[in-house]
């Protein structure tokens, strides 16, 4: 364990309509055992003591699973470590004297609420459009009634691991949510329970994505590189197939 000193350039913005700007702070001594969010805690404690407004940032579980945290650090969603959420990024990956530029997840569909906090309700809206299996509580058949090949269950789980953080959207030059939508469409189309609605789901989720102002996919692969859960862009290929099949061959309109 040792201490490092950093220069933090953090995006400060009072509200959705206020102009934002970068503000520089000297971090003071930062233990390399700290997580990135604990480093922000230390800064905020100091700012509060000085009577200044602390930096607003979203966070909750701090275990890398709730998907609430996230910011762009030196141009990378969730910072430079591969497959790591911001809360699981530790300061030992930075060097004494580094400058860190910290800004919110930016996308046309993500309004900035304050500082690093953004509105990601668009992700919920896309799930609402069709990211579910239409089954009411009660009356489900025995869980082992339909065997599911282990390989399919594992592939479905790979896609279902998405934490809905929005890093993929922020990393994409088009601010597309293709990886997010693809993960859900893949998860449910790989399982028999999701089959009855697979065409409708693909059409509705993609159309909702377009309506919300997310961009299109131009195969930059930035989303995959930024995803803290390692969701593969093969899911996007699967989404494209599901969408095409639905648009061309299904009765759904």
């Amino acid at each position: 364990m040792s201490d490092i000193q950093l220069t933090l350039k953090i995006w400060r913005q009072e509200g959705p309509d206020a102009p934002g700007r970068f503000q520089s702070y000297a971090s003071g001594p930062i233990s390399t055992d700290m997580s990135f969010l604990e480093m922000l805690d230390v800064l905020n404690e100091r700012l509060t003591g000085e009577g200044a407004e602390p930096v607003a940032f979203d966070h909750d579980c701090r275990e890398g699973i709730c998907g609430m945290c996230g910011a762009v650090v030196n141009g990378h969603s969730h910072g430079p470590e591969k497959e790591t959420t911001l809360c699981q990024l530790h300061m030992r990956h930075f060097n004494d004297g580094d400058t860190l530029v910290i800004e919110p997840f930016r996308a046309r569909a993500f309004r900035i609420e304050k500082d690093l906090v953004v509105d990601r309700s668009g992700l919920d809206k896309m799930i609402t459009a069709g990211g579910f299996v239409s089954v009411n509580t009660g009356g489900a058949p025995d869980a082992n009634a339909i065997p599911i090949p282990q390989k399919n269950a594992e592939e479905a789980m790979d896609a279902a691991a998405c934490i809905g953080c929005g890093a993929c959207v922020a990393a994409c030059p088009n601010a597309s949510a293709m990886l997010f939508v693809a993960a859900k469409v893949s998860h449910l189309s790989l399982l028999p329970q999701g089959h009855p609605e697979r065409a409708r789901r693909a059409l509705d989720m993609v159309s909702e994505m377009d309506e919300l102002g997310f961009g299109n996919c131009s195969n930059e692969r930035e989303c995959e590189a930024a995803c803290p859960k390692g969701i593969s862009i093969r899911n996007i290929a699967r989404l494209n197939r599901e969408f095409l099949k639905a648009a061309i061959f299904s009765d759904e309109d």
Partner: protein
Amino acid sequence: MILDSKIPDGPLAEKWDRHRFECKLVNPANKRKFDIIVVGAGLAGASASASLAELGYNVKTFCLQDSPRRGHSIAAQGGINAAKNYQNDGDSIFRLFYDTIKGGDFRAREANVYRLAQVSNNIIDQCVAQGVPFAREYGGQLANRSFGGAQVSRTFYARGQTGQQLLLGAYSALMRQVKKGKVEMLSRREMLDVVVIDGQARGIVTRNMLSGVIETHAAHAVVLATGGYGNVYFLSTNAMGSNVTAAWRAYKRGAYFANPCFVQIHPTCIPVHGTYQSKLTLMSESLRNDGRVWVPKNPGDTRPPTEIPENERDYYLENKYPSFGNLVPRDVASRNAKEQCDQGKGVGSTGLAVYLDFSEAISRDGSGVITRKYGNLFHMYEKITAANPMHEPMMIFPAVHYTMGGLWVDYNLMSTIPGLFVLGEANFSDHGANRLGASALMQGLADGYFVIPYTIGNYLATISSSPQDTSHQAFKQVADEAAAKIGQLLAINGKKTVDEIHRELGLLMWDSCGMSRNEAGLQQALARLPAIREEFWQNVAIPGSGQELNQSLERAGRVADFLEFAELMVIDALSRKESCGCHFREESQTEENEAKRDDANHAHVSVWEYTGDGNSPEFHKEPLAFENVQPSQRSYK
């Protein structure tokens, strides 16, 4: 008021069926006339919201986070129990019931726990139908694993992310009802109080966390699914936002609080490593299947673990509990780790850690096998500590994890305020004095999917379905009180940050009302708490205003309630003079320093009634009768 748990008559196995038949029904046309508020969108809240909306009720669901997909149920790793007996290894509803009630050290209601075991099977069916990708065997059948406190394999899992997958299943069901217009989802809302009119819960007051606007919402019934209060200790494995506010406000409006001192402290967490630390991270209990726990034999031995020879190590769990060894229940493992550290044999820079060593398992099974079993956990450990458990022992220490105590509810999950229901970790009902692994997910979903949809109708059928609105003056009054409290907080303008005071509270609670408790320590805490509360209300610093996103203000409101609630925990711990499960009173132990229950005097639920600020809470007792199991002293030797 006399506590009536409303346990149905008849044989244990028939109680729930009989009760479902006897519950009054609301006909489908009338369901449309009833509005229900659900606070919280974790497993219990999301599953209740979706199920109630499917029935036809109009549901309004609230959560703190920006999305209902983020409740802290999401962080549960290990799995969910069910009595499916898919492994043909002798499991049954009665065995799951028995293990749960024994694991809880005979401090839970038989009828509730039996119902939990009964509906556990429906939960698995429901989740699979929603598309939850549980682990499967090669042939396509569901896989199971074993877990602490059970001798059968009954735990269903989705890698190390079972909570996430179950929550996303419930969330998808919830969002489907949002699409149908049956649920109105209100995110980034914090419940500040409950509104009680003529003795019935009629609505809530919330703060819009983005705009700061204080809002009022009316309904025919209110369902709290607001989780546990582990963050009273500041450091815990809970999410940062987990809090007691909703439950505490309900308590102050007349809902009784049960067993507040029952807090589960999980033995395998990553140790505290600095004063800036914000939370603790759990390492799945499954690690104890292959890891051996040890400390150096000699206090103060600072050599690196690899340089300490075999004969100078103390494998204290294996030595003390030869038949269970490293697999003793959570409470026993935690207490023993503390005991070793108290003797100066703790390791690491703080001396507050013990080793969990995989070297024997690696040389026995090969590194490939161990990596397949625990690779993701080792990876997580390495990310946080920069040490690789394949090469050196892990360091672990107990941490606050789950609260068995909560608002008192009857068999219908209704609190002592008619119309106020409490689900999941927020209630007290099923885990007694200690929760078994993989049972929290089961209870949250049982309450939400399979209990509340029946029992809420039984209440609604007795009240008028006339439309509810917030015009009653009680709404304005409660909203004004909430606004005044926020104003008061912002006016303090002191010097200490919210976290500084919260840390001080947490340390006091950890030392005096943590893994082991004694009369003197608890009395000291009781004397010290008013001073910390005073310091908070005189000297806390909250920058910014109330009319904006203000995270300092949010935390301050929660800490203000923790500061009051802590006192009730200590009072409860003082009054329970026996040791049971997680609650270890040093005065009540066997000759071998194990927890000693006192069934003659303490076979009851301790239930507390609010009697006004500054007054002592009134104690009520719900006696626990055991007709189907014989309470025995737990032994793991």
